[in-house]
């Protein structure tokens, strides 16, 4: 033991004496511009693809070297790190910014609009954005002042995963419910026939799915910079979910990971969650699993907020900004986009990837579950992002409200109304 401890001490001291070499961003030995790319893609969510894309890019680029940095805890975690970095006076070059942080990001961080960089340094790409992206998709990355903050990169939408085995066992249509009303009915039947939970509605640390549920019923999260979700339609929509959890006890109120775990192991018949979970569910479920389009409300159009993130340029100087666009242009190429979709399950933001031979044509044909997500993209609306300094607080209030409502400590009507008032008060400050 003594010998062992001495060895440890010795090694430790040696290690300390070896000079520490921290390479800062800047220029590498071979004259390439070195930039940082911050992403949130865990290994289960395209981490490998990010790695591959960055490696390939570095291999073919003579002027730029990209270092990818994974940020745990999704866009919130990334924003935290960015905050700390900014407080310390640094910034990476390219950053994934989640939609819900769109306004907060543009209000608080310094960035350059991609188009500006393009016009300054890459006249040949001047029409790149306009040519390759649909206007409604590009609009997703505009802040409340109408500025193009970044370029949409990861696009996801919520779909309904169904366990056909359970549906059949309960004597229900194995193609799953088409409307929210049916979701509720199905769940009741499932509970009665099989004793299992009928439904799980994803509960992450954001209000993305909630927005889909409410806005599809005709409610509007934000109108003219004010919160307006507590409309009649909004309350009605939320009540359906609350009823399922509290009254019928057919829906599961549980954390996201645990909810998905319960769907995969067959304890829950249907799960409403992001298409990004597809590979996890598809690979691990041992039953007849399918993904169907997001349910509508009887007689109404589906409105689905885009999930995911945009890429923004936060590089502080022109050299790095230039490098940033070079890297981004590579990421937005058809081949890269296709890889990205395959690796993550996200829907490609470029309009020409899905049908291109070097894009996703064959892939989509082979992966039925993706179809639901791609097909419903015409219903995409921007993710509601509250403007101003209080935006994040407003978002947090809504999250807290979800726990209160589904925990049964407040009625939907009272909860939505009071939080709406509170948020509007905050936004007015």
């Amino acid at each position, binding site marked *: 033991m003594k010998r062992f401890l001495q060895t440890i001490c010795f090694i430790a001291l040696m290690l300390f004496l070896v000079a520490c070499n921290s390479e800062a961003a800047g220029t590498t030995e071979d004259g390439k511009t070195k930039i940082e790319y911050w992403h949130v893609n865990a290994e289960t969510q395209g981490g490998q693809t990010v790695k591959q894309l960055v490696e390939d890019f570095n291999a073919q680029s003579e002027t730029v070297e990209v270092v990818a940095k994974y940020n745990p805890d999704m866009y919130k975690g990334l924003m935290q790190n960015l905050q700390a970095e900014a407080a310390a006076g640094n910034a990476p070059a390219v950053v994934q910014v989640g939609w819900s942080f769109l306004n907060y990001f543009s209000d*608080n961080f310094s960035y350059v609009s991609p188009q500006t960089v393009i016009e300054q340094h890459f006249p040949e790409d001047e029409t790149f954005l306009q040519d390759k992206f649909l206007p409604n998709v590009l609009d997703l990355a505009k802040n409340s002042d109408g500025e193009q903050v970044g370029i949409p990169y990861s696009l996801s939408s919520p779909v309904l995963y169904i366990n056909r085995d359970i549906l059949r066992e309960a004597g229900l249509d194995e193609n799953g419910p088409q409307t929210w009303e049916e979701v509720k009915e199905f769940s009741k039947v499932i509970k009665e026939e099989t004793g299992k939970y009928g439904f799980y509605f994803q509960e992450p640390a954001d209000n993305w799915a909630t927005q889909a549920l409410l806005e599809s019923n005709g409610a509007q999260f934000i109108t003219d910079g004010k919160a307006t979700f507590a409309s009649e339609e909004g309350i009605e929509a939320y009540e359906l979910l609350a009823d399922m959890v509290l009254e019928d006890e057919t829906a599961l109120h549980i954390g996201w990971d*645990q909810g998905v775990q319960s769907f995969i192991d067959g304890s829950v018949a249907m799960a409403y969650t992001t298409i990004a979970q597809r590979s996890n569910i598809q690979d691990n479920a041992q039953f007849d699993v399918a993904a169907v389009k997001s349910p509508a409300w009887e007689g109404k159009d589906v409105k689905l907020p885009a999930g995911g993130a945009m890429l923004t340029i936060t590089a502080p100087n022109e050299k790095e900004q230039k490098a940033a666009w070079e890297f981004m242009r590579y990421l937005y190429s058809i081949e890269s986009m296709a890889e990205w979709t395959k690796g993550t399950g996200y829907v490609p933001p470029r309009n020409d990837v899905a049908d291109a031979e070097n894009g996703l044509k064959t892939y989509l044909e082979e992966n039925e579950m993706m179809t639901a997500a791609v097909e419903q993209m015409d219903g995409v609306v921007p993710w509601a992002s509250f403007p101003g300094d209080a935006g994040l607080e407003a978002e947090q209030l809504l999250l807290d409200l979800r726990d209160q409502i589904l*925990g049964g400590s407040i009625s939907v009507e009272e909860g939505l109304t009071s939080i709406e008032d509170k948020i509007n008060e905050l936004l007015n400050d």
Partner: protein
Amino acid sequence: MSALAAVRKTLHLNRENAIGYGLLIPSIIIFAVFTFWPFLYTVYLSFFDWNMISPEKEFVGIRNYMEVLGDPRTYQIFGNTFLYIVILLAINCVVPYIFAFVIDIVLKRWNGFYKSALFLPAFISLVVGSILFTWILNPVSGPLAIVFGWIGLEIPNWTKSEGWVILVLSLITSWKVFGYNFILLYASINGISREIIESARLDNVPLWRIFFQIILPMSSATGIYVFILTIVQSLQYVFTPVKVVTQGGPDYASSNLIYHAYHEAFVVYRTGHSATLSIITMALFLILLFLYFKFVDRGIYYEN
């Protein structure tokens, strides 16, 4: 020169004492830079409204304090913190105390095995523990739920129920903390002279009396140390499972002062509120600090 001499005189600085100061310099530098300065900076921040990145900090006087103390949420967090402390103390102070006593006095066999096994999880990361327990304790699909299902029991939906969530997160934390405290207390009890315990046994004193009237007072210095450590350290340990499993939810039901300070700083970016909460936490800990110097530091000295 004369000023230097004066300093020397007031500090009573002869060669011998200079060595004493010298030995402290490494610690003092590290603490000054990485603890005391940050502490003062946090005090400073508690008087400003700042979101960590904006170049301007707005001086708001005691408004942060007014807001934090005026917010009913703060009192919910106080309540949670108190509940955490009570549960953690019960599991990580009272139970190990009894266990240490039992293993030292009552049990004659397998003592070595028990000690090794109970200490084992203390060596493992709480992140690992948090992920592991989230899975194991899944109220619908987890192994425990299934085993309970066989005997017709249900696991409460703990991640989403007030009260339960604190209990379970405390249990996860205890998984790691229990063994260490147990060994500390065992060491102390084991160090009590056997003659004293034996003479009590000769007088036919029942075990519980031995525990309360001999063991407890004679190991009190360690007891208080563990007591304080449980509050100060475990409350910080709980941070990891809270962050990994619930992020303070549902509706702040699992948040405590430490996590809430983090939440204010890094989730909603209200640095001033976060600093204020930290300062309030410090003030509460100060009471413990007082206890510590009153009993542990000197108590231990005399116990030797």
